[in-house]
């Protein structure tokens, strides 16, 4: 029982450290006007380019593959009983509400989450973070905050992009399977989509982006000493990001749809 108590305390302490870290990064927002705002924007733009623009080809492939598979699987069964209209319900529920944000998050974790954890871990080992502190530069302001803003904005845009590509390739798959017209296909989808879906898509993108920026930053910055700690920190960041993103997705979906 004693061991269970110790583990619980340790887990709670780890969680509280991460919450405190997120609060400290959030606090940077209130001091933005004091220093380096011009330079911070340049770092944000770089992050947007890496997380957003450079992820587009891979995300297009994933989005096209998933939407085509779902449409083909659904229509191949539904068309046998003349129930093609179900494609709208399945597509909105599976792709737009759930898989779109989740798969985008998985791609961003794989590309940017790992890069952030590894880069900040290496910065720590090379004492670059300490060097920033000796110059009076706040690492949260210079290193973490631009990543938070960049990854959050990029993830929100990528979720929308995923949905648009999914709708497009879903139509191509529908046309190949049942010769469905674009008008019919879009009508099925628009009939099922609600305003709440737009909000949820935006909210999930923002939430996942914040998680993917903050958790790897935290794990990168707590690396101490040995370079061998960097891959360990990266692995921890990826595992925790995946777990938290799926949990957050479930919570948001339950709150909005049930």
């Amino acid at each position: 029982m004693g061991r269970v108590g110790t583990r619980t305390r340790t887990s709670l302490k780890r969680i509280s450290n991460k919450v405190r870290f997120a609060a400290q990064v959030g606090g940077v927002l209130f001091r933005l006007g004091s220093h380096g705002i011009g330079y911070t924007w340049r770092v944000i733009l770089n992050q947007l380019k890496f997380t957003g623009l450079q992820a587009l080809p891979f995300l297009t492939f994933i989005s096209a593959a998933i939407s085509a598979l779902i449409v083909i699987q659904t229509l191949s069964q539904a068309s046998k009983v003349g129930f093609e209209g179900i494609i709208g319900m399945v597509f909105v529920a599976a792709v737009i509400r759930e898989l779109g944000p989740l798969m985008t998050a998985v791609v961003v974790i794989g590309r940017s989450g790992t890069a952030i954890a590894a880069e900040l871990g290496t910065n720590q080992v090379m004492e670059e973070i300490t060097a920033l502190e000796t110059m009076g530069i706040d690492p949260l302001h210079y290193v973490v905050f631009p990543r938070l803003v960049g990854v959050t904005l990029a993830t929100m845009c990528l979720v929308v992009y995923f949905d648009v590509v999914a709708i497009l390739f879903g139509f191509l798959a529908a046309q190949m399977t049942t010769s469905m017209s674009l008008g019919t296909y879009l009508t099925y989808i628009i009939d099922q989509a609600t305003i709440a879906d737009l909000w949820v898509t935006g909210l999930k993108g923002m939430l996942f982006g914040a998680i993917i920026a903050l958790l790897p930053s935290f794990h990168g910055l707590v690396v101490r000493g040995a370079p061998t700690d960097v891959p360990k920190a990266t692995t921890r960041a990826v595992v925790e990001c995946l777990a938290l993103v799926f949990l957050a997705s479930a919570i948001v979906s339950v709150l909005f749809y049930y």
Partner: protein
Amino acid sequence: MKRDTTLSEVIGDGGSAFEGRPVLTCRDLRASHGDEILFEGLNFEVIGGEIVALIVESEWCARLVPRIAIGVETQDEGEMELLGTIHHDLSERQRLALRHMVGYLFHNSGLIHNLTVWYNVALPALYHTRFTDVQGVTERIEPLIDRCRLREICQLRPAELDEASRKRVALARAWAMRPPFLILEDPLMDIDSSSGSELLDLAFGPTPPEWIGHDPRPANPGVLITSQGLHEGLFRYVDRLIIIDQGRVVFNENPREYDRRGMSHPTDILEQKEAS
């Protein structure tokens, strides 16, 4: 915090603001590493315009003292007063504000690997202006690039440079804000003796004729150098040499005046240390 928009509003004026006054005061400092006491009862001052070299016994110690001085590491006992402020009671934000007026050269240069040499030198100047004052920063950084002989390499990244060049970049960066206090943390580590002499000549030597009247180095800053050994160049430039042996100060004098005071030569002290 002051809301600054141009570099001229945040940049220092070298040592003039602290002339004759201490830029660093170390009182009864004690620090340990595991069970080993690195030093205790350490007392010294660095006055504005004075160059002080602290010769210590270990690499760890050479890093620890300057880092305690600027508050990125903590001591077991004692206190440090930096630029007239005792900083262990300050918040982290207040410490950051204090540190921007200290030029700091890291033992491993501490350059940011994804920035070019130019941006590494300019980083503190770019960061400490509220909006990027490109003109002001360029006017400040360009002479530093030339003075430290970085023109040819200013578009390269730190990984593409040798250690001596990296040290020159780090020195230029330490000068960027024209600070009243400079800290050189084991600057001669990982470079050969002639590169070490060049670095010290660049940092403390007389202004070359072509730079007279517009030398971008900060004028008369207080300087603390930590080192594991007594380089010949240090003898030429330091005003005071502090040698720590077994955690205690055994020499604290101007190294050029040791014989007039009937003391052992500092190198003899170091040789005795090594022999013992």
